[in-house]
C-alpha cells in the first residue's frame, strides 16, 4: 500500500535554513544539506527546499545548493521559490531537483502549469497554494502571504488539477506557525475534490496533529518545518506513533 509521506520543509535564505512563524520573524535553523541528510537518515520521505531569497545572486546560490542536495541525498526532493518561467524549472531539474513547486507565478500566469506539465511531466509540477480563511471563504495569497488575490482555494486548486499539476501543497495561513493542528476541514474538502495528491502544510505542533491530518484531513502527505528543525518532534518516533494508529507509513 502506498505510504503516507512525512515531509520536512526547509526555507532557504542566502544558502541557510530559516523558519518564520505566520510568515514573518525569520529564525535560523542550520545548514540545508546537513539538515536534509539528517532528515533523510531519520526516515523523512521527501524534502522540500523553498528559496525565499529574491535577488539574482541569491537565486544562483540556491541553484548551487540544489546541486549539493542532489549529490548528497538519496530521497526525492522538491524545490520552490522564484520560479517564474519554464527555463527556471529546467535549470532546477537539471541541477538535480525531482519536482518544482510554483506558487505566485502560477496565479499570475496559470498557463505555466500546463507548460511545466507538458514539458517535464505532471509528476514534476507541484502547485503551492497559500490561503487564509476569511468571512467570504478561503482566499489565495501571493508573495509569501503578503498580497490577497481574487482567487478562492477550492476553485483554484481544481483549476491547477485540471491544468496538469501533479500535486497541491496547501498551506493554511491561519494555522501556519501556531502549532494547533492542520486545517483538516479544508483539507478533506480538497482531497475529495481533487484527483491528485494533497500535501498539508501549516499547523503541526504535536504527533496527534499528523495523525489527524491523515485520518481526518485525508492528506496524502504532511509537511512541517520548525517542529523538526528544533527537535520538538523526532521523525522516527513520529512514524512509530502513526503506525500505532494503523496509518500506512514507511519505517
Amino acid at each position, binding site marked *: 500500500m*502506498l505510504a503516507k509521506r512525512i515531509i520536512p520543509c526547509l526555507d532557504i535564505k542566502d544558502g541557510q535554513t530559516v523558519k518564520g512563524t505566520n510568515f514573518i520573524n525569520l529564525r535560523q535553523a542550520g545548514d540545508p544539506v546537513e539538515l536534509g541528510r539528517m532528515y*533523510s537518515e531519520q526516515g523523512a*520521505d521527501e524534502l522540500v527546499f523553498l528559496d525565499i531569497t529574491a535577488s539574482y545572486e541569491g537565486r544562483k546560490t540556491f541553484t548551487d545548493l540544489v546541486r549539493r542536495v542532489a549529490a548528497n541525498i*538519496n530521497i526525492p526532493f522538491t524545490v520552490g521559490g522564484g520560479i517564474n518561467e519554464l527555463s527556471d524549472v529546467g535549470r532546477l531539474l537539471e541541477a538535480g531537483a*525531482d519536482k518544482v513547486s510554483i506558487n505566485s507565478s502560477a496565479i499570475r500566469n496559470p498557463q505555466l502549469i500546463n507548460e511545466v506539465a507538458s514539458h517535464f*511531466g505532471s*509528476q*514534476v509540477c507541484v502547485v503551492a497554494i497559500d490561503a487564509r480563511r476569511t468571512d467570504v471563504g478561503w482566499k489565495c495569497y501571493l508573495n509569501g502571504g503578503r498580497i490577497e488575490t481574487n482567487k478562492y482555494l477550492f476553485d483554484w486548486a481544481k483549476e491547477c488539477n485540471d491544468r496538469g499539476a501533479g500535486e497541491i501543497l496547501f498551506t493554511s495561513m491561519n494555522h501556519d506557525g501556531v502549532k494547533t493542528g492542520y486545517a483538516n476541514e479544508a483539507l478533506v474538502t480538497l482531497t475529495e475534490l481533487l*484527483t491528485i495528491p494533497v500535501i498539508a502544510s501549516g499547523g503541526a505542533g504535536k504527533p496527534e496533529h499528523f495523525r489527524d491530518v491523515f485520518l481526518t484531513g485525508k492528506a496524502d502527505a504532511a509537511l512541517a518545518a520548525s517542529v523538526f528543525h528544533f527537535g520538538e518532534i523526532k521523525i522516527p518516533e513520529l512514524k512509530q506513533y502513526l503506525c500505532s494508529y494503523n496509518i500506512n507509513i*514507511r519505517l
Partner: protein
Amino acid sequence: MNVAIIKYNAGNIYSVEYALRRLGVEAKITKNMEELRQADKVIFPGVGEAANTMNYLKNSGLDKFIKSLKQPVLGICLGMQLLCSHSEEGDVDCLGIFKTDVKKFMPIQHEDKVPHMGWNTITCTKSPLFKGFTKEEFVYFVHSYYVPICADTVAETDYILSFSAALHKDNFYATQFHPEKSGSVGERILKNFLSI
C-alpha cells in the same frame, strides 16, 4: 568497475550518476556506442514520455544497439517500460526485450490517484537485485503507466492492481521504481546490480 549510463534526453540521468557516486562508483554518461559496449554494466535511466523517447532512440540508432548489449543492463522507470514490447503511452512499439505491453493505470476509486507517486512496498522478490532482502521494503515510485505481471516479473507492487515492480530476463534487469531515490534500500539494489 566500468559503469556507463546511456546518455539521452531522460530526466534522471544525473540522479543516477550521483547515486552511483555515493556508492564510490564514477559512471560514464555517454551515447558513444563503443564506450557503452565496453562497459561492465550499463544503466538505461528514464523519465519522460514513451513515444518521444522511442523516436529519439530510433533516430540515434540506440534502439537496435541497446537490444544488442550483452553485459548486465539495468532499465529504470521509463527505461524499464521502453524495454517492453509496446506502450500505451503514445501507442508506440518499444524495444521488445520483455514480451509484454505497458498499460495506463485506470483508477477504480477516488483514492486511486494517477500518477502512482510515493513510497510503496515490493513483494515476491526473486532476482539477484534483491539479494539480502529479508522483509517487504519500501521503494520510491513515480509513474502513470505500468507493466502487468508477466513471465519476467521478479518483484510485484500493489496499487490499483498488482503490477511488475521489477523485471529480469537474460542480461536485462529493470525496475519500475527509482532505486536512485529509494534511500538505503535503493542503494542496496544498485549495489546488488553492480555485483551481478
